[in-house]
């Protein structure tokens, strides 16, 4: 199948994200949703339920404002709006990870306002390198596991969890493979398409996703081999932050002459790496996967790992600069920003911060900043 057709299938999913979840529900399967980020989908899957992400991509906020102050990020606001509107009524449960103060407070609001019978708050250690972190997290995963068993009525055995881990690892590996091909041959598919494929994985059945993804990788490889002209005039960029929303931001980056070749986004690389060790006890493997994820403002440590991570990422991807995509009112990102900017500045890495909102595609000023940034790092616009 041609690349376009394969991409269309992922696109269709992202345009109508919950059709798979709804049809699962109709067939009698339990459906458990999760908010970004870091909820171990494998546990949901191993309990025989269908895991589905809720990324809050909803633009007209009418109901959520009654419950939230102005300084709540648009990601949480959008998700709650969808909940209040009844868009997520098919869910048998919702797991809310605690990434920040906002998510912590959201759990209570969801419990009071939503009809979803099971709402869980998944608490991850913030200081991932503390010696107590691992033991604590295994305990928390055990708690989550038994709750999921109760909700679904299915036992999660080591075997079933192992099988789920294998399936999800495969998905991550394939996604990383696709990303590598894109970074080596930018332009085969657009930056937005790359990230749409990743986003689709959050809504789809993984077996199905893996199947189409395999075909896509094949098609990309063939196209790469055919194209003689390896040079790509686009400016290579890394993006850093939570979610790449609104999706139009990806188009803007490309229109301004850039291409995204690396990231640390929740709806990007942070979703894809690392794998869970298939040879270990599955709960321990899930805990280790969480603790070894690439650094994010919500879970960092005092060793300034994220500074080094971003610096290395830019070098390793041969990017000319880094763009922070920060959601307005995202406190972890906003607090860390100065530190990250300093680190990049002292490494001589040009960087730009754009403040975005989920569901708000008015990007006029952002366009100017992006273009000016790419004019700045991309060499002389005349030549």
């Amino acid at each position, binding site marked *: 199948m041609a690349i376009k057709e394969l991409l269309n299938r992922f696109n269709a999913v992202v345009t109508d994200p919950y059709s798979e979840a709804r049809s699962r529900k109709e067939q009698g399967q339990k459906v458990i949703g999760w908010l970004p980020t870091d909820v171990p989908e494998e546990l949901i899957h191993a309990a025989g339920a269908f895991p589905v992400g809720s990324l809050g991509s909803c633009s007209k906020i009418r109901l959520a404002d009654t419950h939230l102050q102005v300084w709540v990020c648009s990601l949480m606001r959008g998700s709650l709006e969808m909940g209040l509107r009844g868009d997520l009524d098919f869910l048998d449960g919702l797991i809310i990870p605690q990434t920040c103060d906002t998510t912590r407070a959201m759990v209570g609001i969801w419990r009071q306002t939503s009809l979803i019978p099971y709402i869980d708050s998944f608490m991850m250690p913030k200081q991932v390198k503390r010696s107590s972190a691992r033991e604590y997290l295994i305990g928390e995963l055990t708690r989550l596991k038994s709750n999921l068993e109760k909700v679904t009525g299915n036992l999660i055995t080591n075997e079933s969890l192992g099988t789920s881990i294998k399936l999800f690892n495969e998905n991550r590996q394939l996604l990383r493979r696709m990303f590598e091909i894109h970074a080596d041959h930018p332009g085969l598919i657009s930056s937005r398409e790359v990230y749409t494929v990743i986003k689709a994985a959050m809504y789809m059945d993984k077996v199905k996703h893996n199947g189409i993804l395999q075909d896509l990788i094949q098609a990309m490889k063939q196209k790469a081999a055919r194209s003689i002209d390896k040079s790509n005039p686009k400016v290579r960029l890394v993006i850093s932050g939570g979610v790449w929303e609104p999706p139009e931001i990806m188009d803007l980056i490309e229109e301004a002459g850039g291409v995204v070749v690396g990231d640390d986004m929740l709806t990007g690389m942070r979703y894809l790496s690392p794998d869970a060790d298939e040879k270990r006890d599955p709960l321990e493997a899930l805990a280790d996967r969480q603790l070894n994820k690439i650094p994010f403002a919500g879970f960092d440590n005092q060793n300034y790992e994220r500074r080094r991570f971003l610096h290395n990422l830019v070098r390793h991807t041969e990017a000319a600069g880094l763009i922070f995509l920060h959601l307005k009112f995202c406190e972890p990102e906003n607090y860390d920003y100065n530190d990250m900017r300093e680190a990049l500045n002292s490494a001589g890495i040009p960087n730009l911060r754009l403040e975005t909102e989920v569901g708000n595609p008015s990007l006029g000023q952002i366009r*100017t900043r992006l273009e000016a940034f790419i*004019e*700045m790092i991309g060499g002389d616009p005349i030549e």
Partner: protein
Amino acid sequence: MYVAGIDIGSIYSKAVILKNNQVAASLVKRTGGEIRTISHRIMDEALTPLGIQLEDLKSIVATGYGRISVPFAEKQVTEITCFGRGTAQLFPDVRTVIDIGGQDSKGIKIDERGRVTDFVMNDKCAAGTGRFLEVMANALEVNLEDMGPLALQSESPEEIGITCTVFAESQVISLVGEGRRKVDIVAGIHQAIAERIYGLLKMLKIEERIAITGGGAKNIGLVHELEKRLGTELIVPEEPQLIGAHGAALMAMEMAMHRKGG
């Protein structure tokens, strides 16, 4: 050889025509109505005295927020890049440019050739921009041009919080209601804007010398407040609003030369 730079801003549109690197004509006009129409009109007005037409221009570069809608431009370049070029041409030793436009304010770092090395820009909100001054002038029933000189007359400026244009406006209205002196309110407004812009600039490694461009540069009260905070004298170009169009024209000239040279 003639080339042109056109800068369509949110409030004013500007054009600069260069003839062999010398400014042959320049123009500032209010942006009103359709950008297509205003682009043509401003060019006609600039070119007619020179006895030439659009077709005689070897290259045209458009900049400013309306740059994508200029129908005859050969290339669009952001105002940030253009302000760098334009400033360096006029003042080669400037390393930091403060641009205060109608809808946004910016800080731009440039090297000796006028190439941008870093920049910051205010957020969507109009606080700290020309638009903010306009709103305040309206609320106080003072002519916009009189705001700056008025600010200089105050000895005890009012404290104005400036997180948001709408809040600040109602604060100003209540100060008026309390019978506070207009000059003190005006001075307070200028301090607040200067504080906001200074906060933005601090995100850059500010290096001297510093120039101020855009409509805001014409406001002596604002320039004065910024100088106080920056601890140095600001370079104010004779025509601060034209720097962007001038930079665009310089880029047009480079493009034309580049083509000629093969």
